[in-house]
Structure formats: C-alpha cells, structure tokens
C-alpha cells in the first residue's frame, strides 16, 4: 500500500467491482429462475382449472415438458387423490405453498436448465402468452422491438405507483361514462402491476355489471358464435366473457388469492352466465385457499343449483358443526333434505313408468309414495315461502298425475309468485303440464318455447354444435313429456 498506493487502490476497486459484477450476474440468474417459477405457477393454475387458451399453445407445450420433468419427484410426495385425472403432479403441488421450496429448487436445477433456457428465449422473443406483463421485465432484456426494458425503466421501480394512478384515471372515466376507454386502461393497470388484485375484481365488476346494465338482451339468432368460449355471444355476453378472461388472467398472476376465484365463480359464472357447473368449479378452488367465512356458503348454494344436493348438504352440515345454531345453515340443511327426497321420489316414479313387471312397478311406486311423504314432512316442518311453494308443487304433481292439469297449473301459478327463487323452475313445469294436458299456452309461454328453440343456434355456429344442441333440447323435452 505504501509502496504502490495507486496500484493497491486500483486493485481494491477492481476486486470490489468484480465482486459486484459477479453478484449482479448471480442475481440475474436468480431473477430468471424466479420468472420461470412465476410462469410455471401461472401455467400450473391454467392446467389445474382447465382454462384452455387457444392463444397459449407455446406456453402449454413448454409447461408440459416441465411437468413431465418434475413428475417423478413431485408425484410420490403428494397425497393420494391430490392429482386430478389428466393433470400433472406439478399443477397439484403448486396449489398450496407446501411444495414451493421444492419446486424452486427444481426450477434452479441443472435438470431443468434446458427448459429454463427455452423459457427465457421464448419470453424474450415475446412468444409466451402468460408473461405479458411487466413483472417479467427484469429478465426481458433483448425482447426484439417490444421495448419492454424502456417501459420498465421509465418508472424507476415505481410501476406499482403508476398502476395506482392509472386506476384513478379508470375511476374518472367510469364517472364520466366513458366505458369504452376504461377497458384498455384497466388492462394497462394490471400490465403494470399484475398483483393488483382489486383492479381485476373491480374491473370485472365494471365489465360484467355496470357496462352491461344499459345493454339490451340479444336474441339468439343475432348472436355470434365464439369458438374460444364455445358460446353464443350477444352484446351483454361479450362483456361478460371479457370480464371472465380478465379474471382468468388475474388467477394466473395471483393463483393463491381466493377473491379472484370467488368473483369468477360466483359473480360471473353464477350470477351473470347462469353456469352453475363453472361456478362450482371456481368456488371449490376459492374454498381450498385461505378465505372468508361466507365463501363456502356461496359454494354450497352453487352446488345446490348445479343439482349436487348431496355435496351441498354435506357442506351445510359441516358449516353447522363449525357455527353451532347457525340459522341459515339449519334452513339449508332442511331444504336440501327435502330436495333430495323430492328427487328420489321423481326417480322412483320414472323407474315405475319404465318398469314392465307389475310387482317391480308397485315397488317403485311404494318408494315414490315414501319419498313424497318424506319430502312433505320436511316442507311441513319448515315455515317459509320456499317450503310452502314446494308443498304446492308436490300437490300440483299429484293433481297432474290424476289428470287434473288445470288445477295443477293454477297451484304452480300461485306457488311461483309466492317464492320468487322458484319462478323459473315452476314456469317450466307449468309449460310441461300444459303441453301434456293439452291446455293452451299463454303468449309468454309460447315465447319461452320459441326462445328455447332459438337458443340452439346462432350466427357462425358450426353445424355439428348446432345438431348436438338440438338433440339435447329434444331429449330434454322428451323427458318432460
């Protein structure tokens, strides 16, 4: 130092910069591994929820390679039945945080190095669908022509603050009624901050509820077939599905936040798209994650609407063990017992109709009477408009069985106005009785029949789908009659 001070100091600076440089490159590798992990979590959520994306073929192909490579390590660690059929052990392991450290270790390992390199090349080439946000910007350098680095650096690490200010602008547009301007800004907002969960929730709420509030119902012949969603889209439905896609993106970026699953399942699929099957699917995942106490109740309601009475009953009973004397749970338990008895009665009646052997027929009829009495007893034990309406329904069915269709229809007509939640179900039953009893249909009932017939086709729908839906409608009507 004393002899060659400049040289010594230069050497110290050189060593320190070299350490910094090596550390910088080490950090780059760590950020790359993190980005790979983040993408795997998004693709894993996609697989777990079967959110098939036609635009994400490159992602799916790469994910499948990663899933195959990790299968042998993860599968033995998972509990029996944890891996759903057709899914990988990786997507099952990603559901909770339990295997995160193990997955991260594998993500960094040499075995996955070729896939990691492939991921980075595809990410930088802009080929991957699930990496279209700025949380990948730290490893995106070199993305040709996309300028991701410049956008990222523009915010000096404050892109989350920028996302907040973009959201304030979305709010202003909402109050100014400029709904069409909100959508690109909402997408910009989550592009800047993919973990902005409330932006997904409120954005989907605006799209699904507020934007569509002033839009008219589109008759089926005027709707357009959407290959991506396998549905006929009118004005309202187009926005519903934009909201659905927005929330699905939210799930990929935040796979462990129950709120997005809940909004997708309950607010969109149940409330707007009348799709209880998908509602149950997403609410089931919401319940598996840390959630608020009311979330499972919405799942049980959706299970009931999807016809899964036994599972719904199981859920309400479990709820009752957790919250003793919970009045709503007690009411739903009774209600589901009644519905299960009614369904058993219906099955017994259908079996009796199909039976050719008189003794077998009589046995089924005995079951029918037993289940009907059971249902009646349950409804008698409850005192609310719903149970009263169900009782009237049982009475109407009994009248119809005796051939008194007009009386049956008048009973159902009263019942459907007493319990609003049963209006649609009872209206369908009225049409059914009128058709069987050869009674004239009202104008609205005729319109309902026409709407049903029209709903099998829309513009651009493939012939095969049309035939399939027509056959399903005919089969449904045959069962009714």
């Amino acid at each position: 130092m004393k002899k060659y001070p400049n040289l010594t100091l230069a050497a110290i600076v050189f060593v320190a910069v070299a350490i910094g440089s090596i550390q910088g490159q080490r950090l780059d590798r760590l950020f790359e591994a993190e980005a790979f992990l983040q993408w795997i979590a998004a693709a894993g959520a996609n697989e777990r929820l079967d959110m098939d994306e036609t635009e994400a073929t490159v992602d799916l192909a790469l994910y499948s390679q990663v899933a195959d490579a990790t299968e042998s390590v993860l599968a033995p660690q998972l509990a029996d039945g944890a891996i759903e059929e057709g899914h990988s052990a990786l997507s099952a392991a990603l559901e909770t945080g339990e295997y995160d450290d193990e997955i991260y270790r594998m993500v960094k390992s040499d075995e996955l190095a070729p896939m990691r390199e492939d991921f980075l090349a595809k990410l930088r080439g802009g080929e991957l669908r699930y990496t279209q946000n700025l949380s990948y910007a730290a490893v995106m350098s070199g993305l040709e022509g996309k300028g991701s680095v410049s956008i990222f650096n523009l915010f000096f690490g404050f892109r989350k603050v920028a996302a907040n200010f973009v959201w304030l602008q979305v709010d202003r547009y909402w109050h100014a009624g400029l709904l069409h301007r909100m959508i690109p800004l909402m997408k910009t907002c989550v592009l800047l901050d993919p973990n902005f969960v409330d932006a997904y929730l409120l954005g989907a709420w605006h799209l699904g509820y507020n934007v569509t509030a002033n839009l008219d119902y589109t008759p089926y012949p005027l709707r357009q077939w959407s290959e991506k969603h396998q549905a006929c889209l009118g004005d309202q439905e187009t926005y519903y599905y934009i909201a659905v896609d927005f929330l699905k993106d939210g799930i990929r970026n935040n796979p462990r936040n129950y709120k997005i699953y809940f909004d997708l399942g309950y607010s969109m699929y149940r409330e707007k798209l009348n799709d209880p099957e998908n509602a149950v699917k997403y609410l089931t995942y919401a319940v598996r994650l840390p959630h608020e106490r009311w979330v499972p109740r919405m799942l049980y309601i959706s299970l009931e609407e999807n016809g899964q009475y036994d599972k719904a009953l199981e859920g309400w009973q479990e709820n009752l063990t957790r919250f003793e004397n919970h009045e709503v749970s007690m009411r739903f338990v009774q209600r589901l017992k009644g519905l299960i008895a009614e369904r058993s009665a219906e099955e017994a009646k259908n079996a009796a109709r199909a039976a050719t052997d008189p003794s077998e027929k009589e046995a089924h009829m005995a079951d029918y009477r037993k289940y009907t009495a059971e249902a009646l007893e349950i409804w008698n034990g409850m005192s609310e408009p719903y149970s009263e309406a169900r009782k009237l329904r049982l009475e109407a069915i009994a009248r119809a069985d005796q051939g008194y269709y007009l009386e049956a229809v008048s009973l159902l007509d009263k019942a459907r106005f007493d319990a609003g939640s049963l209006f649609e179900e009872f209206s369908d039953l009225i049409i059914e009785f009128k058709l069987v009893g050869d009674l004239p249909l009202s104008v609205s009932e005729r319109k309902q029949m026409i709407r049903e017939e029209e709903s099998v086709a829309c513009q651009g729908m493939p012939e095969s789908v049309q035939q399939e839906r027509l056959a399903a409608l005919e089969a449904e009507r045959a069962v009714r009659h």
Partner: protein
Amino acid sequence: MSAVVDYFRGPWHIAVFTWREGIRKKTLVGFLILSLLVIFASFFMSSFLNQTTGGGQVETEIDGKLIKDICVATISIFGMLITIFISASVVPNEVENKVVYTVLSKPVRRMQYLLGKFLGVQMIVLANLALMTALFLIAIYVRQDEFPKLLLWSALLTYFEFLVVSAFTFAISCSATSAVLPTIGGLFIYLIGNLTEYLKDVSLRSDESDAVHAIIGHVAEALHKTLPNLQKFSIKTEILDLNPGAPLPAHVYEQIPNLIIYGLAYAVSGYVIAYWVFRRKEL
C-alpha cells in the same frame, strides 16, 4: 485489539460530529418533513376512490395498497434525495469552511477522516430511513391492524440501494470544492443506475458485421456488466405483495443476501475511489 479501537476512535468522533451537523441542515429537515407529509397524505389518497366502490357498496383493499405503494415510493424518492444531498455536501462544505485543515492537522489520517465522514453520512441516511419507515409502519398498522413485517425487509434493501448511490456521490464530492457538482452527479448516478438495462439492449442490438457497431456493442456489454444496476433492488416493492403471515419464499430469501453483498461490493468500490481521489487532493 486496542490498536484497532484507537484507529476507529478518530473516525467515530468525526462520524458523530458529521451526524450532529447533518441533522441540523435545513434542506435535509425540509426533505424529511415533506416526505413525512406525503406519507401522512397517503391516508387521504383513498378518498379519491370512494366513488369507485359505489359509495362503499363494494369492499376493496385499494386504499391499503395505495398507502403501501405511495409510502414505498416516497421513502425511495425522498430518502434518495436526502442521501444524495448529504453525501454530496459533507466533504466540500468542510473544505469550503476550512474545517478540514484543522481536522487533518490533528493526528488523523485522511483515510480515518474520510471513513468518519462516510459513517456519519450513513448514520444520517439510516436515521431518516428509520423515521420514514416507522411512520409508514404506523400508517399501515392503523389502516390494516397488522404489523407489516415485510416492510422491514423492503427498508433494508432500500438502504443498500441508498448505500451504493451514497458511496459514488461521496467519491465525486471528494474531488469537488462545492456541493453543487456532486449533487448533480449523485442524481445522475441514480438515473444511470436505473437505466443500466439499456446498455444490454444496446449490446444486443449492435450489428456485429459493422466494426464501429461491434465496438459500441462490446463497450455497452462491458459497462452493463460492471456498472451497478439499481433496478435489481426493485424487489423491495415486490416483497410487499407477499403474504405477511407466511414465511418469505425461498427465492426471496436467496435474493436478499445476494443483493446486500451486491450493494456492499459497489459501496466499497465507491468508498475506495473516494479515498483515492481525496488522498491526492491538495489540502
């Protein structure tokens, strides 16, 4: 052992003196008050969003997020300004006031003097950061009724980002006679530190078939690899999105010590450059 203690006694006294002098600076106090005001004002930012939720019909956590993001940004911006101003001024001010001559006429080596000054700067930076973080913690605790322990990790990383900028600004200040040039230099260091990624883009876009382009590309690549990249510290904001109740994920645990070493390495190089410049200074 006593030799080591003796060696550091001088720098420690200088550091304490620098700290006392620093906290009296009106500019710094002004920045600190401003930052505290912004952190306090973040409470009211959410009132802009009251209407989004339809008059409270929809329950959201946007206001909590707003407070978090604005506070982190405020701490970073004002903390960085405080760091630059203090690092840029401690040595030039003493040269200007001729205090440095009195100090160096005592049995204090230049290395010790500079170490004391640098330590004093870090004490001021740390105290400011601690104050702002404490207010932020209180803001979050009042709003969400939970102790945001992840914020402590975020504050730690923020400090190491400040340390890198502080060291290089300090190095510039050792060659200057007034605080103006080092302050501008410090701001440039912060800007360049955040734009280092551009160099990688330049190197990737350079045309290898053209000699000039190829040279520019190689220089850009070398600079990208050697210059400190402050964007690497941006995980300080990502950390806040993690679940506060769960342990830190493995990848974050691995990144934090590496970032600290990264920050320390560049801070050491900045400090040694400062000494290199200062030891040749004619005083």
